[in-house]
């Protein structure tokens, strides 16, 4: 039910965007987010629910290193 899929916003018309999911492009409602073309969003039941932050987008490996380093402190 809470499945959300990431995709890239490639077009915006009012509150509807076209999001590229890789193998599929679909219209998505943008009522809940402020985004620009080129942003990545999480899409749930046809609505973008959050903009994905690239700065915070640490890979699991990096996060794991941080967690381990913090534990040794």
């Amino acid at each position, binding site marked *: 039910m809470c499945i959300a899929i990431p995709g890239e916003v490639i077009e915006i018309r009012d509150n509807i965007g076209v999001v590229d999911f890789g193998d599929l492009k679909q219209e998505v409602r943008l*009522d809940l987010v402020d985004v620009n073309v080129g942003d990545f969003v999480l899409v749930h039941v046809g609505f973008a629910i959050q903009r*994905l932050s690239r700065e915070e987008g640490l890979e699991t490996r990096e996060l794991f290193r941080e967690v381990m380093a913090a534990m040794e402190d």
Partner: protein
Amino acid sequence: MGIEREISEQLHALVDRPMNFMHVCGTHEASIARSGLRSVLPPMMKIVMGPGCPVCITPAGEIDAALELAADGVTIATYGDLMRVPGSQESLESCGGDVRIVQGIHKAVEIAGRVKNEVVFVSVGFETTAPTVAAAIRAEPPKNFSILSYHRLVPPAMEWLLTQGEAKLHGFILPGHVCTVSGYHEYERFPVPQVVAGFEPEEILLGFLMLAQIVRQGEVGVRNAYPKAVSRDGNVKAMALMHRVFEPCDVEWRGFPVIPASGLRLRDEFGEYDALRKFGIAIKKVTKKTACICDRVLRGIADPSDCPLFGRACTPARPIGPCMVSHEGACRIWHTYHVGGRK
């Protein structure tokens, strides 16, 4: 060496005492079961699924209210997952009414714009979903459109579980996509270790590792293992919209008693879109005696395979309990991925 194996090794080193963790998300359970993650966990660590499937915790009486409307000729629109959830007599799929599966509420509104008939959207979901409904209601849908608001909020249910104490939990994996929207500040009041986790197997494993760390350090509080989507405050715009359109109400969860302020109903201002008010119907309390133990599975005190019906009388093709119906239900997931065998 694969990252999963590295994390798993650290986890084995950390878990030196019984650690029972609950997650409250069907998508987490599906990922855990599909990847066989339980098989790489330390022996003293146990993962149970709590009330993390909005479809599963929808009581039979709420399904009955939708069936009552369908029988009166109203067009019902909802998510595919809800179609086969049993009411007290039948399900939306078997009722013979005009019932349509939609991707989301915006598609149900489109149907209402095309037909003259009354259209009712059966609206389930946690904080991830409720703001999408709020957005659609704020956009003033046609007058022949209304919703049955069956939304639930996660923190009140966690509070109930913690107060009850029957599941004997040492920590929670918080639902990644609920927290994407709600943030995790509301969870900071719970005096228990909690970690927000993503949905890839290695992300969940990292969540377990961080939980085990908090337990070992004897601390409580929330840590975030899913920072690419989740922040402490979440999607403030979406949550403000949800609170603008809905107000909290006391509701029953399937398997639970009435949990205070755990549901959402439309504020008076949007009452014309509330199907209960529009059609003058009420949710009836349904008590049905079967051997089904979905209630205990949802509270985290039994595994699906503890049920005498699991895989025998109750299968995805002929489900008896809601946890076997939904793709996010623990029983359905365990059956699909052959977890737990058959007792």
